């Protein structure tokens, strides 16, 4: 065997080993679109010398189905709707997190959400971002005073000028709040009243739109109001169209929150935990809050030291104590009630 051939084989073997080593330095995360901003991920990759592979998903059902069809270890990190953490825990998909490694003491107290992220005394996820499903509107086209009363928002006055955000939980939560039903107490018996409000809302709506469609509709003047909208809808448009704004009505609004956790069976649990810790650190939180996909409030209040005054103004940082006191977490139904709520939503859409 010639020395050249040996050199070739040796080089190939080393390349293979290097490749294997590089493969061990990859983290696979199943996330929402706000995590795909390079400004958020690149600092972590550089600090740890790793590559973070991100896959976006929509809908907890789709994520859980994907995880259940994957091999343990395929995925390391999961970003999930705060109210759905229990579903992932029930399915045995989330690993326990060391509670003392998480800076929840620095969080806005209302969004620690221990009842969602902790099951049987074990922490499985941590809140990373929150915001509101409320009323977004064009201040140049509607009377802002009307927007502070939910019943006025979907009154005949604005027929054909509003769009409904296409997610049943926050919109049904708003309908419940309008009827004086606390979102945490929604039961089967309340669905009739909520359905009536939904039907009224639907009859006045020009469309039922997802994130991009709702933003397009507001920006192009197709509609003037988005029921279920909020800072996540208008913040990215604020610079170009300052008339697009949002408010929390007198009756209150719905609060959304997203959590992050490490997946059970991850082959890189330490690196995954480091990623979670980075995301909930003040620096990570500031970057996540102002992600190019959508803005939202950071769970960690210390992100306020990093965010600029202009960014905090868009996020309405100083109003948070008032907003947090007047909003309710959006409904977290059990499986049976969830199906009933979806059926009601789909029935309403098809009317």
């Amino acid at each position, binding site marked *: 065997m010639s020395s050249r051939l040996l050199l070739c084989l040796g080089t190939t073997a080393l390349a293979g080993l290097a490749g294997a080593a590089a493969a061990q330095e990859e983290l696979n995360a199943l996330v929402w679109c706000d995590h795909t901003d390079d400004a958020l991920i690149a600092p972590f990759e550089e600090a740890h010398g790793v590559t973070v592979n991100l896959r976006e998903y*929509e*809908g*907890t*059902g*789709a994520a*859980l*189905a994907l995880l259940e069809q994957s091999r343990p270890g395929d995925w390391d990190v999961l970003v999930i709707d705060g109210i759905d953490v229990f*579903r992932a825990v*029930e*399915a045995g998909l989330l690993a326990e997190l060391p509670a003392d490694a998480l800076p929840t003491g620095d969080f806005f107290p209302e969004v620690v959400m221990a009842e969602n992220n902790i099951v049987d005394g074990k922490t499985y996820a941590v809140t990373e971002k929150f915001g509101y499903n409320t009323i977004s509107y064009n201040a140049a086209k509607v009377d802002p005073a009307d927007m502070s009363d939910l019943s006025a928002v979907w009154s005949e006055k604005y027929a*054909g000028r509003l*769009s409904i955000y*296409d997610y*049943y939980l926050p919109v049904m939560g708003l309908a419940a709040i309008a009827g004086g039903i606390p979102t945490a107490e929604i039961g089967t018996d309340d669905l009739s009243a909520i359905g009536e409000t939904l039907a009224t809302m639907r009859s006045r*709506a*020009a*469309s*039922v*739109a*997802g994130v991009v*469609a709702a933003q*397009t*509709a507001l920006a*192009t*003047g*197709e509609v003037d109001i988005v029921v279920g909208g909020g800072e996540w809808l208008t913040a990215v448009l604020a610079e170009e169209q300052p008339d697009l704004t949002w408010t929390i009505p007198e009756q209150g609004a719905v609060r959304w929150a997203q959590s992050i956790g490490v997946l059970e069976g991850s082959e890189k649990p330490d690196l995954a935990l480091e990623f979670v810790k980075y995301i909930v650190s003040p620096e990570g939180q500031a970057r996540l809050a102002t992600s190019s996909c959508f803005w939202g409030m950071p769970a960690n209040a210390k992100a306020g030291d990093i965010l600029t005054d202009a960014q905090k103004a868009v996020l309405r940082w100083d109003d948070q104590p008032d907003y947090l006191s007047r909003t309710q977490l959006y409904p977290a139904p059990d*499986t049976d009630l*969830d*199906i009933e709520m*979806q*059926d009601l939503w*789909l*029935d309403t*859409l*098809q009317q």
Partner: protein
Amino acid sequence: MTAVRSDAMGWGFVAPALLWTLAFFVLPFAVMGAMSLATLDGRELVWGLSLSNYAELAERAYLRRAVIVSLEITLTVTALSVLLAYPLAWIIAFRVPPRWQRLALLLAILPFWTSYVVRSYAWLLVLAREGWVNEALLMLGLIAEPVTLANTRLATVTGFVHFFVMLLTLTIYANLVQLSPNYRRAAMDLGASAFQTFRHVILPLTLPGIVTGAFLTFVLCIGDYVTPQILGGNTELTVPQVIMVQLGRRADFPLASALAIVLMGLVTLAYLAGARWLRVDRL
């Protein structure tokens, strides 16, 4: 011996196509069929032979409505596309000089070169209250204030028709250019008027091209999720949209599979209705 070798060679040639069909059609279809007979117990998938997912179609009004909406939109789009594509194909085949026909066809299919999603969003902007259509109607004094065009069934149908007219133009044109001019001449010689010639000679002879294009339109339209989602504004839901809801939030694969089987059933019915004239070689 020669016959056996010939048989083996025949199977050898056919095997790749057979395996491809088995792997990418028969097997997935079988899995989908089996999944449609399974049920969900909470989040647990329970395999079995239950027809409960199909029974839900009868029980849940929004599912029945989705089937009706899908059929109404698809049949409207197919009919409108045929009505618009036939004259266009006719003009290209018989009125455009042969040396310009390639260019005319190229122009007819130019919109195909744009992304489907981008094209749908473009229509959304064109049909918006402050879009070009409303602006033109206002300028002409035909309306006093902007009318709602986007986020309606009209918008969905418009987006679909724009796409499928191109497809149908190709299939009908391919049929028309194969017709010998002698058929028309013979009909005229026998005293037929232009309309009678078209009605009794040209139309029957071009029916395979029409039906083939219409069938393709039906198949692609009834299974499409993007156009109704972007242009329809969720003001009514089609079957593919309802399937996405089942998958996205509930992860209810059994019910989604049953709905997909229903879609396939509708496509099969459409095939049977047009089977007599369907000519895939016209494509």
